[in-house]
């Protein structure tokens, strides 16, 4: 597109924030940028790690870290619900009986800590549950449509950063131009094929595919298209030798 897209705008906010801090773009700086840009007070990213249900990867302030850790302690809450595969959770008014009944342990403590609304967006690639991007507000009210759309874009960038970290790929320096190719059909078809070739789960297969494209310095969709066309196979021994 010729005019600035929502993705361009959000990426501009993310990089400007990192530059102002004099740091490279990271999950932390992204969460901070989102909290500054959107009408919310705190932002966090939590992920599943191994058999542990959730781990707080980054938080833009003490409130979000506290509320994410609270969910781990009490074993319930919006992030946990999303992490086990639920859809997005958009709560415009946390301080009500309905929400209280939903999470009897989490809600009173969250309200006590100052949260009045929360928006938890799943970070997913098909069935792969990467994590959750959650925004907390200290005032009630749903996010307006445009702000919610921007929140989804922040979440997409966060997802990308988490995946890069998991695949052992460095933080992108410029605009991640090939991030679009993440969503092309052949990328996901290739992921399925690789999971059978290597006898590994779908998340592991996706990670291997991304790492391979990165080490070869080629677009993800190009490597994926070769796999789908059966011009390339992922071989367990070879992959192990490469240590990716």
């Amino acid at each position, binding site marked *: 597109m010729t005019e600035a897209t929502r993705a361009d705008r959000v990426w501009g906010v993310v990089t400007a924030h990192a530059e102002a801090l004099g740091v490279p773009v990271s999950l932390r700086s992204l969460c901070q940028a989102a909290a500054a840009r959107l009408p919310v007070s705190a932002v966090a990213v939590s992920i599943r790690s191994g058999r542990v249900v959730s781990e707080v990867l980054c938080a833009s302030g003490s409130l979000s870290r506290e509320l994410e850790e609270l969910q781990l302690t009490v074993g319930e809450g919006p992030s946990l619900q999303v992490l086990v595969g639920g859809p997005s959770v958009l709560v415009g008014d946390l301080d009500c009986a309905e929400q209280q009944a939903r999470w009897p342990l989490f809600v009173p403590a969250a309200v006590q800590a100052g949260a009045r609304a929360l928006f938890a967006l799943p970070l997913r690639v098909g069935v792969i549950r990467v994590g959750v991007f959650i925004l907390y507000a200290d005032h009630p009210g749903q996010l307006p449509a445009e702000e919610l759309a921007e929140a989804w874009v922040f979440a997409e960038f966060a997802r990308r950063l988490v995946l890069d970290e998991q695949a052992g790929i460095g933080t992108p320096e410029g605009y991640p131009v090939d991030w679009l190719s993440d969503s092309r059909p052949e990328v996901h078809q290739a992921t399925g094929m690789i999971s*059978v070739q290597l006898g590994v789960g779908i998340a592991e297969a996706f990670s291997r595919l991304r790492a391979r494209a990165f080490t070869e310095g080629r677009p993800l969709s190009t490597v994926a298209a070769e796999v789908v066309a059966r011009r390339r196979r992922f071989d367990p021994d070879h992959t192990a030798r490469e240590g990716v």
Partner: protein
Amino acid sequence: MADDRLTRTFVELADTLVAGFDVVEFLHMLVDRCMELLAVSAAGLLLGDSHDQLQVMASSAENIHLLELFQLQNHDGPCLDCYLTGEPISHPDLSVAADRWPMFAPAATESGFRTVHAVPMRLRSQVIGALNLFHTEANALAPEVTQIGQALADVATIGLIQERALHHQHVLVDQLQTALDSRVIIEQAKGIIAERHGIDPGAAFTLMRVYARTHGQRLTEFAAAVIDGSTTTTKFFPSAPAATPGE
């Protein structure tokens, strides 16, 4: 065009919009019906994601060149114009449209298409995607075809917003994201089945649709079961040759 066939199609589509229908299967069925009713050579349904990028939700063929043509339209093309303006966009002869769409028009011509049409999927003031129709002949789309195309695009929009309308009435972007994610699940499962049975992803998709339909299972749920291993496809597709485990 036979009116009763048209009526049957809309009744069939409306019947599909019941609780728990599968949005990916629904949109594929809609694209299939476009092919039959409108006598076009290819059709695809694209949705705008949260970054305003058009993503293919359903395509009349898995042909890599066709998918590329849809994808290209994030740079230029009738779907992009349609998505940005909310107006239907057509061109009767793509072989002379390179000025207008420098990337798309030559690529489409190369793929053998001459006539193109894009109709918007609109919800009130918001454009959420576009239905893309191709014909291999020039000047091949009659006005009534584009009207029916618009009617089908409207049904697609209703299907998309209805899937989760009860839960999140106010958040369209959320619903579109979920629909796009369902599509990714299908693609992942296609890859697994294709590799396991030594077939191409298009054939894998046909098998999945047939299985889900005959067993009354939602396509996306079936796909998820294939991926997590709780469904073994060898049992369902006995005629497909099992792929030998990789060396």
